[in-house]
């Protein structure tokens, strides 16, 4: 078979670099020899053995990741419940939430064979919850899970473990489901007449994660995440409105963070101070005999001061538990319509 020029060239290059003899009659031989002889910088060489120990040490410290393939998953269920074949997992999910938990605990991700089982288990869990508030919380939890799955896909694509095409394929469905779940969660939260403060907190948390993921992603995924962000922003507004109806006034940019059930922390400029209450924006905190002033006194509090408040919600009112001054500021005109300035 006649060797093509590029093959012969390759051989010439190889020999030139190795310093071996080769046929100088080749038309390119002279140039190739010159290229091969161009001096190179001496590399600052590492200590390969030390790097090797580092790698082996890191590997040794790694926890083995137990990933069950679909075959092992079926075997697990059929053995555990003494029912044969593929019917096992589906049938058992329908009858027992514990099994659904076990499926979720397998840490399946989009693209894994058993991932659809995880979704079925989540749907069943949702159907079993009657009240809107509980539904909202669960849907928020699932939306957060979808987001974490999406972030894992993005991370894999960035490290080169999967190609961009594979990432887009896996992410596409996840992003759509994220949108659906987040919207459903938000609607449920908006429908609740007295939402739990944790629901708004979870929405705010999901918002923040969506924002981060949108910054880190590109292209179609970025656009879809930004759309989802819009949906949850609107839903957060609706949920906040409901909370306001319950007696907690919150502002657009929400200096209020709801930490636990009925616990509130706030950071902002005082807009009003009286003997019985202090206000940040339109959020009013009633003072009690148990209100603790950390680095100040009630007398020293002035409008415009930047303060931190920890409070609790009781009987549709918010009470200040602890007040601290963050830093001195110029007194501001008391204007409850002024936008919050972080």
């Amino acid at each position, binding site marked *: 078979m006649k060797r093509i020029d590029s093959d012969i*060239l390759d051989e010439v290059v190889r020999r030139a670099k190795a310093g071996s003899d080769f046929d100088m009659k080749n038309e390119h031989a002279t140039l190739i020899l010159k290229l091969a002889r161009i001096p190179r910088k001496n590399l600052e060489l590492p200590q390969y053995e030390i790097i090797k120990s580092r790698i082996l040490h890191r590997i040794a410290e790694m926890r083995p990741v137990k990933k069950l393939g679909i075959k092992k998953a079926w075997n697990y269920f059929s053995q555990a419940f003494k029912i044969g074949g593929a019917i096992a997992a589906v049938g058992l999910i329908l009858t027992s939430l514990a099994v659904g938990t076990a499926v979720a605990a397998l840490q399946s991700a989009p693209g894994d064979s058993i991932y659809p089982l995880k979704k079925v288990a989540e749907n069943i869990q949702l159907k079993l919850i009657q009240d809107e508030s509980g539904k909202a919380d669960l849907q928020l939890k699932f939306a957060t899970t979808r987001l974490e799955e999406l972030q894992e896909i993005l991370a894999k694509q960035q490290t080169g473990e999967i190609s961009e095409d594979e990432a887009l394929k896996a992410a596409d469905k996840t992003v759509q489901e994220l949108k659906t779940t987040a919207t459903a969660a938000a609607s449920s939260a908006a429908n609740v007449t007295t939402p739990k403060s944790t629901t708004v907190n979870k929405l705010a948390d999901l918002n923040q994660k969506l924002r981060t993921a949108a910054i880190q992603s590109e292209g179609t995924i970025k656009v879809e995440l930004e759309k989802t962000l819009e949906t949850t922003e609107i839903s957060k507004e609706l949920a906040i409105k409901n909370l306001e109806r319950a007696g907690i006034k919150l502002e657009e940019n929400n200096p209020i963070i709801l930490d636990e059930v009925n616990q509130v922390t706030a950071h902002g400029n005082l807009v009003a101070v009286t003997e019985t209450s202090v206000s940040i924006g339109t959020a009013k905190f009633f003072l009690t005999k148990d209100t603790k002033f950390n680095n100040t006194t009630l007398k020293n509090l002035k409008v415009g001061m930047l303060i931190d408040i920890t409070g609790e919600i009781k009987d549709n009112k918010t009470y200040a538990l602890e007040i601290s001054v963050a830093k001195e500021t110029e007194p501001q005109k008391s204007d409850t319509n002024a936008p919050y300035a972080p």
Partner: protein
Amino acid sequence: MTEEDLNIALLKAQKGDQLAFGLIYDHFSQKLYRFVYFRVGQKEIAEDILADTFVKAWVKIGQINTPKAFSSWLYQVAKNNVIDYYRIKRELVPLDDVVEFLENAVNPVDEVNLNLEQRRILKAMENLPMEQQQVVRYKFFEDLSNEEIAYIMNKSEGAIRVIQHRAIFKLKSLLKP
């Protein structure tokens, strides 16, 4: 290490044999280090990226079928780690800018000790199409094989040989007096 030995080491490593993985590291580390070093220009950074690349390789080794696929995968991951390094360093640099850094970070040529003719050759190289310049640089100045160049440039080995042939042909015509 022969291809057969490498295959055996890969199979053992896939079953958790860390010593066998060590042998795989011995086989690939020098070339991979050079590749990374010429893109980041600093020994410590190159060492870190080299270590990270192999740690990732260990995690994913079960999914690699052949030593060839492994080699290809290693270069891809190393390249992506370099991209990430520039992104983190410069806070979300656009990908086009990062690609430029990938090619120009460190010049492997010892420019101080070039004779006139060699300078002329390098000057002429600047007039080659980018792809041809890259292949010549990888082949002659970074000592990468056609296979490795193919991984890095996402082309087939055959395509690389054709580009190399065209580059030499064009360079020769540019250098004609």
